[in-house]
Structure formats: structure tokens, C-alpha cells
């Protein structure tokens, strides 16, 4: 370190005659071009030193900046969502007190009703090795020794009670009722609406199901590992007994097949079985196939052998669905579509292809199914079906939020990389969408990040208004898990009618674990739970 200083000292020592130095350097240049090159900019030693130390200084600034960004990115071991990121009021009323840090109603009290439950289920979560329906062994998680866990069926208006016991899941568990508009304390998000249930602990969920449709439940504690490992199951809500819909073919339990698609250890399965799964279905009778995408990527479903109809999306029936023959239907991660499939009267079977070698074959016993043909085109739900009046007034909005997803280099909790941003910020500096009970909310979700993101809002169902400026023209499209692809911009609307603190995150769960988590917060409500903390809550 001292040697390089020598020329500098000499140069300053002889600062006066530097014109000589210059002329010498210039005159020497033709003799030894190598020397001139070595002298660098200006050729004068002091200039060289200035440039060198300037460069070193800039490097120090660069390192200092990187160090600061690294230091600043670290996420505290205990973090309340109430302190996470910044409040976005969406152009609506800002309370006099500003933020609700001063307190508010604890979401812990927003529980389901008391009374005698119509459906009671006990679920015991375990970490164990289990066999798929087709025999392959998987190291993962089970509910009542099975994955997928037990299917829960209820009718509209039923009070459902689920007693969750954690027998052996080391990280703890929490169950989220995906798509169901439960009271906030029943939402099952560790660190937001409850503490993770530790080994030996138990937790009871109680809620009334209000919308007939296809839903699912899954762990919301270390979800990117636990859901992948098998901690999930189906929840089917049938129309209330005696209602009009209960008698129609769409509601009849006899012609109703649940198809949970999940990838275990790199094996795509439907209802826990790899390959082709046969389901007996009479010719000429419509069967409702409830496809649930429990994976992290979009699922493309094709039907070969007969036309099909998409009769519901995310637990909400579509209006006036027409026959589809030449299109696949895409299901966002976490999303559901109900297909109406009718095996042809001639006696053949219908193949519902679920990709990656997995399919359902519906038809009379022994009927042969055609090989899967996967059309290149995808059904556009924006213009599918026919329009109908909706129960949401979209003429005026109390809040107008923007959620823009991008990807930038930086540090996430100290790790360098290219990370997802929400409205330009890395986790945990993410937006907190502030609403007041009763608000009609509009949200514009834009994706510039290069990858598709299945955006999932808890506790609410949103109506799709437009995509890339094109207004929805088909059936009202209600969704809770919406694939927003690269370059797309969706405008959705919902009524803020379910108070509490709700996650609004990407359902590609590794993305969520990498910070694609925002939340919707109602004015006047707060949560006593924290991410991290003594319960080691880690929702994603």
C-alpha cells in the first residue's frame, strides 16, 4: 500500500514543474508507447493519482451504498403488518388520526357465529411420509393421514366448524379458507389473523358459508412449503337445500367430481393420483368437474371428446356459458373453474386433460377416451358468456388503488438478487390498502415483471371490469385468484364489506415468500398478531 503512494508524493513534491513532466512524458511517448499507455489519462503522475484515488473513492461510495441497501433491507425478526410498508388511502378519506396505530378493534374478536354447526370436521396435521393414490411415496404433510385432506361439503347457510390439531408439523400450521368470505379471525393467516398452531396445539375455525361453489383450504403458515408438501383439501359449497339451484343438474351431488390438481415431488396428480384417473359418468348427462389448481403455476385444462362449458369461476357461477370446443381454459394458481362435461350419447368417454400427463376420463365403464388434443388458443373469460346485472354499483368508487408489479435488482432481507416489487418497493416496504367499511373499491393491477402472477385477495371477491382497457363484455366474472400476465393491466372492483386485515398476495407461493405480499386494512381495525415473534409466524 505504501509503494503506490511514492509517485504521488514525488509528484506533489515537484508540483511546480509539472509542465516539464508533461513535456517529458509526451516526448518520451514515441520511444516507448507502452509507457505512455501505462501512464493512463493525462500521463501526469498526479493526474494519474487523482484519477486512481477518485476511482477508489467512487468504489468506496458504491460499496457504502450497497452496504447501506443491504443493511436497510433486513426484515426485523418480529414485524406487525400494521407497521409494514406504507398506507395507501386510494384517494379516499384519511382519518383525522392518520394511521390507526393508536389502536382499534382487534381482529381476534372477528370470529364466526356461535350456535350448533351443521358440518363438523376434525383435521389432524402431520409431517410424514405417505403414499399417493397410485402408490408413489412422498415426504410431505397430511391431514388425517391423507393428502389431499378430507373433502369438506356444506350447503349455503351452513355453519361449518373445523377443529384443527397439529400433531407433528414442526413449523406450526394454520388453515386458510381460500375464496370463502369468512370473518377475519377465521381467515387462518399465521401472523395476521392468528398465531401458528404449534405441535400439540389446536385451533377451531367457525364460519357460515354464503356462496355456493368450489373452494379449497390450505395452510397459511410457511405456505410455500406446506401447501407444496400436501397440506390442503377441497371445500365444496352446494346450494341450500330446497333452493332452485339445488335441483338443477349443476347442483346435483351425484354428477359432481372434484379434481384437485397438485404436483407432489415433481409428479402432477389429480385427486392425489398420477396419470389417468377414470370416473364413471353416464352418457348424455352433464357432470360438473370442479377443477382446483393447488399448484404455483397456471393450469391449462383441455377437454377432448365433447364440447364443454365453463359454468363457474372461483366459486361464482357464470351467466350464459356457451359450448367450447377449440380452446383450453386457464386456471390461475389457487383458482378454480367448474366445467360442465357431457360424455357423448354414442358411448365414448371424455378426457379432461390437466397437463403433465395427468387427466380425468369421464364416461361409462369401459368406454374408450380419445387422446388429449390441446388447442393452442385459450378461452378468454373477459368475453365468455353473456352479460347480466351485478350486485355491485360500479358507477362510483370510494377508493381507487393501483398495484403495479415489477422486478428490480436489490436486497431482500439481506439477500442480493432480482426481486419482485409492488408499486416500486421491495418487501416489507409494500403498500397497505386502506379502506373504510362499505367502500366500493377499484383496483388496477398492472404487471411489468416478466412473469405471470396469480393475485389473490383474501376475504373478498372482486369483479373484473376490464383488461388492458377493454371492458368485460361476457358474463360477470367474479374472482379471488386472478392471473395477471406480463404486460397486462386488469381493473377489478369489490365492496369492502368484511372488516379486518386481509392479505392481498401472489399465489405463486414462492413469490409470496419472496415478498409479494400486500394487505388490505380496514380503518379502525388492528391485529395483535405479529409475523415472526414467539409463535414463529411465517405466513408464506
Amino acid at each position: 500500500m505504501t509503494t503506490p503512494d511514492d509517485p504521488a508524493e514525488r509528484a506533489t513534491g515537484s508540483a511546480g514543474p509539472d509542465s516539464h513532466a508533461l513535456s517529458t512524458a509526451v516526448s518520451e511517448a514515441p520511444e516507448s508507447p507502452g509507457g505512455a499507455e501505462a501512464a493512463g489519462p493525462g500521463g501526469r503522475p498526479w493526474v494519474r493519482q487523482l484519477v486512481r484515488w477518485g476511482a477508489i473513492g467512487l468504489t468506496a461510495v458504491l460499496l457504502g451504498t450497497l452496504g447501506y441497501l443491504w443493511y436497510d433491507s433486513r426484515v426485523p425478526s418480529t414485524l406487525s403488518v400494521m407497521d409494514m410498508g406504507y398506507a395507501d388511502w386510494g384517494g379516499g378519506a384519511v382519518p383525522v388520526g392518520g394511521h390507526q396505530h393508536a389502536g382499534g378493534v382487534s381482529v381476534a374478536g372477528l370470529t364466526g357465529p356461535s350456535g350448533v354447526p351443521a358440518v363438523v370436521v376434525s383435521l389432524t396435521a402431520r409431517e410424514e411420509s405417505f403414499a399417493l393414490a397410485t402408490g408413489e411415496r412422498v415426504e410431505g404433510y397430511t391431514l388425517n393421514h391423507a393428502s389431499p385432506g378430507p373433502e369438506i361439503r356444506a350447503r349455503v347457510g351452513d355453519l361449518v366448524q373445523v377443529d384443527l390439531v397439529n400433531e407433528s408439523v414442526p413449523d406450526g400450521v394454520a388453515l386458510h379458507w381460500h375464496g370463502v368470505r369468512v370473518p377475519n379471525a377465521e381467515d387462518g393467516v399465521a401472523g395476521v389473523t392468528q398465531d401458528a398452531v404449534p405441535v400439540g396445539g389446536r385451533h377451531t375455525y367457525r364460519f357460515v358459508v354464503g356462496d355456493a361453489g368450489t373452494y379449497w383450504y390450505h395452510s397459511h403458515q410457511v405456505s410455500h412449503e406446506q401447501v407444496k408438501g400436501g397440506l390442503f383439501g377441497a371445500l365444496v359449497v352446494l346450494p341450500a337445500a330446497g333452493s332452485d339451484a339445488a335441483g338443477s343438474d349443476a347442483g346435483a351431488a351425484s354428477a359432481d367430481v372434484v379434481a384437485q390438481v397438485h404436483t407432489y415431488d415433481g409428479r402432477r396428480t389429480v385427486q392425489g393420483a398420477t396419470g389417468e384417473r377414470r370416473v364413471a359418468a353416464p352418457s348424455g348427462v352433464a357432470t360438473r368437474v370442479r377443477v382446483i389448481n393447488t399448484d404455483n403455476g397456471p393450469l391449462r385444462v383441455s377437454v377432448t371428446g365433447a364440447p364443454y362449458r365453463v359454468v363457474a369461476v372461483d366459486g361464482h357461477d357464470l351467466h350464459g356459458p356457451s359450448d367450447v370446443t377449440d380452446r383450453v381454459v386457464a386456471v390461475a394458481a389457487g383458482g378454480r373453474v367448474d366445467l360442465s362435461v357431457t360424455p357423448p350419447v354414442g358411448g365414448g368417454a371424455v378426457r379432461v386433460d390437466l397437463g403433465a400427463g395427468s387427466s380425468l376420463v369421464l364416461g361409462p365403464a369401459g368406454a374408450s377416451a380419445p387422446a388429449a388434443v390441446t388447442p393452442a388458443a385459450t378461452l378468454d373469460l373477459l368475453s365468455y358468456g353473456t352479460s347480466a346485472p351485478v350486485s355491485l354499483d360500479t358507477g362510483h368508487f370510494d377508493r381507487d388503488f393501483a398495484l403495479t408489479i415489477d422486478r428490480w435488482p436489490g436486497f431482500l432481507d439481506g439477500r442480493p438478487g432480482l426481486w419482485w416489487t409492488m408499486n416500486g418497493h421491495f418487501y416489507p416496504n409494500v403498500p397497505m390498502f386502506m379502506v373504510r367499511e362499505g367502500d366500493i373499491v377499484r383496483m388496477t393491477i398492472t404487471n411489468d415483471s416478466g412473469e405471470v402472477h396469480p393475485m389473490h385477495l383474501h376475504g373478498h371477491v372482486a369483479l373484473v371490469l376490464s383488461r388492458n382497457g377493454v371492458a368485460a363484455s361476457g358474463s360477470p366474472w367474479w374472482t379471488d385468484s386472478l392471473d395477471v400476465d406480463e404486460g397486462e393491466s386488469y381493473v377489478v372492483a369489490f365492496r369492502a364489506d368484511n372488516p379486518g386485515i386481509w392479505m392481498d398476495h401472489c399465489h405463486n407461493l414462492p413469490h409470496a415468500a419472496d415478498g409479494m405480499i400486500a394487505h388490505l386494512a380496514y380503518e379502525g381495525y388492528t391485529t395483535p398478531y405479529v409475523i415472526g415473534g414467539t409463535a414463529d409466524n411465517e405466513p408464506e
Partner: protein
Amino acid sequence: MRSLYIWLSRLIALGVVVQVLVIAWSAFDIYNKAGDGVPFTEDTERNIGAALHSVIGMMIIPVLALLFAIVSFFAKVRGGVALAWAVFGLVVLQIALAFASFAAPVVGTLHALNAFAVAGVAGMAGARAARPDPTLAAPARSSDPGVTAGA
């Protein structure tokens, strides 16, 4: 400092070679498993080759390149600073190209091409630093007297 400069340049070039090895392993592993009917989706675990490629490419080589760029100021290698910072710049470009390739796979060809540039420039810098006799010894002689003469 000069020997550290040389060793860092060699480690970076070696890192590029390792990257080529592991990504080839990863690609053939995918072909092999796909032949056995294993699907590759968003829910597929990355294989070891791909995981190594990611760690070496996103963590190890960038850190080496940054160290290399810093060390270059003190290594007294002719043109060494420019070469070291060129390596650093190429590594940054390499990461950008990698992420661009996920959206547009054909860009991956540029990612591969740029890998040769990283290894080539790092190798060139190391070779220049390791051969002091014809290049550095001469200018050291010619520039020192120059300063003295001026003084």
C-alpha cells in the same frame, strides 16, 4: 496485491467454466427426466445443476468480480483497472441477460456468448498481470526516470 489480482482473475475464469459444466448437467438431467415422463412446471424443483448455476452466477462470481475490481486499483497492472471493471460490467450484463432470457429464451444465446467474454477478459487481465517482464518492467523503467527527469 498483484498476485491476488491474478488469482481473482483465474477464479472468475474458472467460475465461468464451472457454470458451463453445471448448466450442461442441468440441461441433460432435464432431458433424461423428461424422457422418463417427469413434467417440468412452475412446481418442479430445480435440479442440482441449475441450483448451483444460480448460486455461483448470482453470488460467487459477482462477489469475486467486485473484489477483482477493487483489488485492481492496488495491483499496479498496466490497464488492469480497466480490464477488471470491464469484467465486473460484463458480469452485471450477464445477470441481466440471464433474467431477460427467462422471458425471451433466445436471449440465452447472448448469455452464453457473454460468458465467453467474462472468461476471456478475466483471463486476459490475469495473463497480462502474470507476465511482468515484457510489459510492466519496461514501462516501470521508462516512466520512473521520466518523473525524476521532470523533478
